């Protein structure tokens, strides 16, 4: 065992060196390397997710944009249709009103004509009575009529000669 001392010295030195290097250099640095690897992995995952989200959002925006375009066209169309309908309705209403008015006017005119005729008839009657009165000279009323009749009868008796 001539060189046992060297062997022991080498092994012990190597073991101590290994412990010290592991404690002071290897472990902290490999831990940092692992941390960095984790961080890079996480960052890459995060970036992938963010990219995916951005793509989703962009697609959503695009879809929304197309939807809103379609919606706008629809709104305009609806508005146009509504306008047309309303215009038609107004037109119809106006026409109907005009027709009603016309009808009413016609009725009124008819009524007035009738009234006027009736009034004229009455007037004619009154007038004839008035003319007759004028002609007769006296207004006839019931008692006068009675007297007239009586006078007339008396006259008849007189002409027959008793007096």
């Amino acid at each position, binding site marked *: *065992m*001539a*060189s*046992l*001392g*060297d*062997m*022991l*010295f*080498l*092994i012990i*030195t*190597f073991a*101590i*060196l*290994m412990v*010290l*290097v*592991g404690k*002071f*250099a*290897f472990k*902290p*640095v*490999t*831990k*940092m*390397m692992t*941390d*960095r690897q984790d*961080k890079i992995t996480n960052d890459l995952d995060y970036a992938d997710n963010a990219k995916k989200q951005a793509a989703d959002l962009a697609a959503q925006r695009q879809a929304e944009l197309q939807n809103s375009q379609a919606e706008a066209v629809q709104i305009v169309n609806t508005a146009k249709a509504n306008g047309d309908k309303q215009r038609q309705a107004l037109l119809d209403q106006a026409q109907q009103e005009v027709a009603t008015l016309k009808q009413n006017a016609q009725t009124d005119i008819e009524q007035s004509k009738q009234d006027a005729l009736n009034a004229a008839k009455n007037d004619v009657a009154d007038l004839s009575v008035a003319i007759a009165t004028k002609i007769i000279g006296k207004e006839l009323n019931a008692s006068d009529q009675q007297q007239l009749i009586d006078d007339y009868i008396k006259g008849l008796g007189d002409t027959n000669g008793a007096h």
Partner: protein
Amino acid sequence: MNESYPYLVLFGLRFNLANCIAILVSAILIFALVFWLSRKPAIRPGKKQNVLEYMIDFTNGIVKGAMPGPEGNRFGLLAFVLFLFVFVNNQIGLFLQIDAGGKTWFRSPTADPIITMTLAMTVLLLSHYFAVVFTGFKGYMKGFVSPLAFLAPINILEEFTNFVTLAMRLYGNIFAGEVLLLLIRSLAFSGGSMGWLSFIAGFLMEMVWQGFSVFIGSIQAYVFVTLGMVYISHKVVPE
């Protein structure tokens, strides 16, 4: 590097001071380096932290290459420290070799077979230990008779060949490199009437060989850790 070392005998154990000093110095260098690099770790790394993380990623890559499953998580620290340790021990003798009083006081510890054998033994013992931890004692024993029972002698033999090849490959490469460094150095200082020429030639060759040895030392550290992890994975990962 003249194969004559200062020895210290303590408690009946003999210490080769050249090895012990160099191991201690490289351990301190490694700890100082990683300690300095690992100050204030943050999610957003600074320059120093990036360097350290690069090294950790490198050794973790070695571990994951051998053990892709969750078993590999346990061996990151071992691979990291083992790689740095073998690497620094391979290189340290290239820059500094001290011979004093006819004895070598400082050179690469991995140029000594005892050191590489100890490292290889540590790794292989850990592989056996973790085989029991991960697969249970039954699974560990079953590993010796798989895939077929009659292969058991070969499996057992393999343990020894693994150990010897792992240790000797590292030792051979580093030792040869340091011997050649020494030879080139003695060429440079050979003196004589043409001493200046051999000095210049030796100087250039030494530089080239040092550069190449840095390369070899790095490769050998990588190979050592890779094979160590492969041996551990053979034991630990259920097949």
